[in-house]
Every structure is written in structure tokens, then in C-alpha cells.
């Protein structure tokens, strides 16, 4: 193995770094194309018309009148959930329970919404959503710091308990179920939101989307700034990368970690509130309200490699899959293909950095790297002494 000695210095011509960048971009593009090709092959294999499928997806998400507005609407909660995921992973925690935190948050938001109305109530709706999600994640935090239960397991189990819990809430009229004398509530839902408590829509070029979409983008920017440039973000990063050092310095591991986990859940809950107030379920809280938004928000963060600004376009793409797949029935292809595409896209975004890290290790450049859920960039560690 004759690796030539590299003498790196600051004035080196940008050719090698430009070439490297080209390789990286090419790898990502290649993987995404491969993922889509696999999906297309699957459709073809089952006898479906894959070109029509692609067309239907684009129609449903962008091309047809009013559709991109709907896509923006769908992207909003995905983005908010993804931001919460980033906060948790920065702190070194694995929170995969957003689907449940979102549901509980939405339930809490519903309670406020059906008992109060008006713009002030709307603020209360969002606060309640945040608190609901935060408390649900708080359960996992308690289990983790008091009983050492890995949060990857507890948050996951809590998703399924949340489904049952919210279902129960919907079965009791003193809680959430809508009760009208003489009318049977067949599918247990809540009362519909008063128009005054709904999120206003912005209308542009024949499309309408809620102002929460704009707020979500602003939130993404804010989270990015907070994590990079504030003391809070600094301490969170310390906690995530080296909890023992953090403890020695004086960052209380339990407090900081639990609050990061709860913030993460709170954002998922707020996303649920945003969904409710912007029209999900016809402005009512229904069984199965989460509708996979929690899972997909999690995937958005993974595909965006835990970078808040990157979540914005990724959330939009994932929303395109959601709105687009509604148009698939005309093609005769099962909607599950969208699930498959999502998962393949995640893999497509995770493989390139891992391949690059592997290559660096093989060439023995003295840099070792690990691609983990908590670190989007390679972690350079000196191998030689």
C-alpha cells in the first residue's frame, strides 16, 4: 500500500478540494437517483405504469391548481417535528416518539380549542400543544434518567400507548368527544374548531396555505442560530458529544438532557397543534390524527443530516410525497409505494457520507469517522498516537 505522503498547507490550489466536492455531490445525486430508480422498478415489476405514477405524484403535489399550497400546508408540521428531532440529537438523545408526542400535543390543543375561542385561544392552543408533547416526552425522560431505560425504546413504546390514550380521550364526552343531543357520534371525534380559533390562510396565485408555514421557516432559522451561536446551543453540543466533560464543567446532565428531550417533544406537540388549527381532520381531532406526520418528520431530519436549514427543502419534498400520493389511486398503484420511496430516500442520503468515511479509513489518512444520528459531520480523530 503506497499512499503518497500528503503535505497539506494553507495555500493549496482549490483543484483537489473542488474535485472532492464534485465527488461528494455526485455521490448524493447518484444515490437519490438510484433510490428513485428502485422505486420505479418496483412499480414496473408489479405491472404498474411508472411514468404515470411519477406524473400523478407531480400533479398531486405541484402541478394541479391549488396543490402546491396544500403541499406547503403539509410541509409545515413536518418541518416543526424535524426541528425537534435536531434538538434531541444535538443533546445526544435518540427520540423516535414524535408520532405519539404529536398526538398528545394535538389532543391538549383540542381541549383548549373546544373550550375557548378567539385569537387569544389560538395562542393557548399552540401553548397547550407544546406542553402536551413536552409532557409526553417527559415520561421518557423520567424513565431514562431515573431508571436508565434507553429512550429509543421508551419513546417508541409511548407512541403506541399515545394512540390508545388519545383514543380514550375521544371516547369520553367530558374530555374531547363531541356530544350533541340526539346525534350519535359514530366515529369518535371532537367538536370542530370555531372559525375564530383557526389559523388564517395566505392566498397567493390561487393557492392557500396557513401562516404557520412561514412561522415554521422562521423557526428553522431560529433553531439553527440558537444551536450554533448561543450558550445554550454550546452546552447542548457539549452534552451530546461528551456528557462526562459536561458534568465536570457544571452542565447538569439530567436537567439539560431532560429539557432537551422535552423541548423535542414539545415541538412535535406544537406541530400537532399547528395541524389542527390549520385544518387537519377538518378542524377536528380524530382517531389516528397523527397520520404518520411524526414518523415522516423524523425522517426529514435524518435526510437533512440534522441541519435545520436543510430541513426546509426536505420537508417540502416529503410533503410532495404526501400530497402526490393522494393522486395515485387513478393509476391503480398502491399508496404504499410512497412509504417505500421515503425509506429509500433516507437511505440514499445516509449512504454517501458513510461511504466517504469508509474510504478515508481504508486509505489510512489518519482520520476515522463515525456517521451517527447525533452528528452530521465526520468526527476526525487522530489515529497515530
Amino acid at each position: 500500500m503506497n499512499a503518497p505522503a500528503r503535505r497539506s498547507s494553507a495555500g493549496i490550489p482549490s483543484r483537489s478540494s473542488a474535485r472532492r466536492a464534485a465527488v461528494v455531490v455526485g455521490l448524493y445525486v447518484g444515490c437519490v437517483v438510484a433510490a428513485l430508480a428502485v422505486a420505479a422498478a418496483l412499480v414496473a415489476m408489479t405491472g404498474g405504469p411508472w411514468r404515470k405514477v411519477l406524473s400523478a405524484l407531480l400533479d398531486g403535489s405541484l402541478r394541479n391548481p391549488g396543490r402546491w399550497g396544500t403541499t406547503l400546508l403539509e410541509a409545515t408540521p413536518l418541518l416543526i417535528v424535524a426541528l425537534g428531532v435536531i434538538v434531541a440529537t444535538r443533546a445526544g438523545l435518540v427520540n423516535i416518539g414524535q408520532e405519539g408526542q404529536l398526538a398528545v400535543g394535538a389532543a391538549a390543543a383540542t381541549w383548549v380549542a373546544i373550550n375557548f375561542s378567539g385569537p387569544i385561544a389560538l395562542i393557548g392552543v399552540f401553548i397547550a400543544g407544546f406542553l402536551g408533547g413536552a409532557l409526553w416526552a417527559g415520561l421518557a425522560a423520567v424513565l431514562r434518567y431515573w431508571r436508565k431505560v434507553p429512550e429509543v425504546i421508551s419513546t417508541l413504546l409511548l407512541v403506541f400507548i399515545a394512540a390508545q390514550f388519545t383514543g380514550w380521550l375521544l371516547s369520553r364526552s367530558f374530555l374531547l368527544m363531541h356530544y350533541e343531543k340526539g346525534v350519535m357520534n359514530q366515529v369518535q371525534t371532537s367538536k370542530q374548531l370555531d372559525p375564530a380559533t383557526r389559523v388564517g390562510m395566505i392566498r397567493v396565485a390561487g393557492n392557500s396555505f396557513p401562516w404557520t408555514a412561514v412561522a415554521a421557516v422562521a423557526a428553522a432559522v431560529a433553531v439553527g442560530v440558537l444551536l450554533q451561536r448561543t450558550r445554550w446551543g454550546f452546552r447542548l453540543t457539549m452534552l451530546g458529544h461528551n456528557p462526562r466533560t459536561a458534568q465536570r464543567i457544571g452542565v447538569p446532565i439530567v436537567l439539560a438532557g431532560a429539557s432537551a428531550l422535552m423541548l423535542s417533544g414539545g415541538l412535535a406537540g406544537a406541530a400537532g397543534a399547528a395541524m389542527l388549527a390549520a385544518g387537519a381532520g377538518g378542524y377536528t381531532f380524530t382517531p389516528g390524527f397523527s397520520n404518520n406526520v411524526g414518523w415522516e418528520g423524523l425522517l426529514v431530519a435524518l435526510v437533512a443530516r440534522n441541519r435545520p436549514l436543510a430541513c426546509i427543502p426536505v420537508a417540502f419534498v416529503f410533503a410532495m410525497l404526501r400530497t402526490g400520493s393522494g393522486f395515485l389511486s387513478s393509476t391503480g398503484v398502491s399508496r404504499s409505494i410512497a412509504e417505500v420511496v421515503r425509506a429509500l430516500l433516507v437511505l440514499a442520503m445516509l449512504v454517501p457520507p458513510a461511504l466517504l468515511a469508509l474510504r478515508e479509513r481504508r486509505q489510512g489518512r489518519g482520520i476515522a469517522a463515525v456517521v451517527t444520528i447525533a452528528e452530521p459531520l465526520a468526527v476526525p480523530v487522530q489515529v497515530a498516537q
Partner: protein
Amino acid sequence: MSIVANTFSDVLSSEAIYQSMIRFAVILAFAAVGEWVAERAGTLNISLESFMIGGAYSAAVAYGVWHSIPAALAVGALIGIVVAAVQAWLSHWLTIDQFVVGLTLNILVLGLALFLDTRWAAKTPVPKPTQIPLLHRIPLVGEALFGQPWPMLLIIPLIPLAWWLLFRTRWGLEIRSVGDNPQAADVSGIHVNKRRRQAILFAGACAGLGGGVLVLGQVGINGYEAGHIGLKGIIAIAAVIFGGWTLRGTVIGCLVFGYFFAFQQAKLVDINPQLNASLPYIVALAVTAIFARRTRQPRALAQPFIRGLT
């Protein structure tokens, strides 16, 4: 008070509960025994679910094509290995975080199974119970233990096989060392990630087989439904934790969880339906809360290994 006592005795004396409990427990055990080996090697596979789904779906499809239960079971185990291979290579060769891969695989495989079902429909037989003469007449537990369809019996040789593999072979010794101290194993000349991958493949085979047994060998299931797996994978992991990473404890854990699933299904006691439905998951939470502090956890559990990153 007497209501509670009556309920209690009802619950304990219902033959149906025991039958149901064994059914659930056996399926859990297929997955849990495999995951036990994988966790002793230091890996944590939340994609256990997907191994089972892959096995279940492919076994059902294979049965529809060949109408042979043994062949279908073999296909199930094989596909379980294939799915496990994806987890194994992505996490322990490319070193992508195993939780991320696990989560993604669950979504991918479920989606695939649902999608492909529209083209290659899964078909399941009406399972015939295999009644072991005499023994199955034992009151209460007779039918449960000795009157199950024959694929369920496959768990019986699997458990001692897993034990033998881990404690009486060189492979097992290396698996254990890789889970407790991969650095030491590495300098001793053992290929750490290769062993970890092999352990995951074993888990895939067991879980895939379990999925196949579920769809082919369970009395009272009307055909295949992908949702049937319903998080048994994560429960199996909880069983391993409950058992303190010992085989005996894992099997007992499966029985405990099996009981709660049976209890939930039988609705013998008049409790709130949502509470009933979430009961096994609440129990799983409680169980991990109580038992996760055990010190017998493999020391390198869920920690990826790269040589040079001590």
C-alpha cells in the same frame, strides 16, 4: 373483593387464555431468542420487526405458490436473513447508526410488504392443530402446550440450539467477547464487525422463521394481515432486557408478555378498551424500567466498533 377474586380465578382458569398466551409467547420467543444472540454480540436491532414482517409476508406468498408449509417456512427464514443482512451491512460495515437503519428498515419493509401484496397476494392455510396424544388432554394447559399446530413446535429445538451456539462453540465465545469488549477481541485476532453481522443474520433467521410460523401456524388467524406483527419486535427486545440478557430470562419474559397479550385479547376483565389495548406496551415500559439497570448488560451494547477509535 369477591369480584376481584372471581376475576382472578376466571383469568387463571381459562383454557383459552393459556392457548392464546402460548401462541403469543412462541412468536415472541422466535424473535427474542435471535435478538438475544445479537445483543450478546453488542448490537441492538429495532428492525427486528422488519425481519418478522419480511418473513411473514414471504412465507405466505411462498405458501400460495407451493402449498408446502416446510418450504414456506424456509423461505420466511431466508427472507428474514436477507432483511437482516441489510441492517447488518449498513450498520456494521458502513457504520450508519443502527437505530436510524433500524427505523428506516421497519418503514421500508412494511411498505414493501403492503405494496407487493397487491400484486403477489399472501395466502395462508387453515392451520391444523397437531395434538400430541394423551398429553393434550391435560386440563388447562394441555391444549395450549401440546395441541398447537406443528410449526409452533419449532421453537423447542431452537432455544437449546441458541444456548449451545453461544456457550459451547468457539463462534459463541467470540460473539460474547465482541459484545463485552470489542477492542480486546480485535487485538486477539477476531473480526469484530464480521461476528456482529453474523449474529444479526442469526436474529434475522429466527425472526423470519417466527414470522412464517405466525402466518402459517396460528389457529384462528383469518388470513394474512401485515399489521399483525404489531410491534412484537420491540416487545421481544423488552423481553431480552427483562431477562437480563440471559436466555432463560428472555424466555420467561416472552411468557410474561405473551400472557399480557392474551389477556388483552380475551377481554375477560371489564376494563377500559384503550387501557386494555395498551396494556402489553405499558407492561413493557414498566418491565424495562425495572430491569434495565441490570449490570449484566453486554458492555459494548449498541456501540459501533471501528478499529483505531478506542
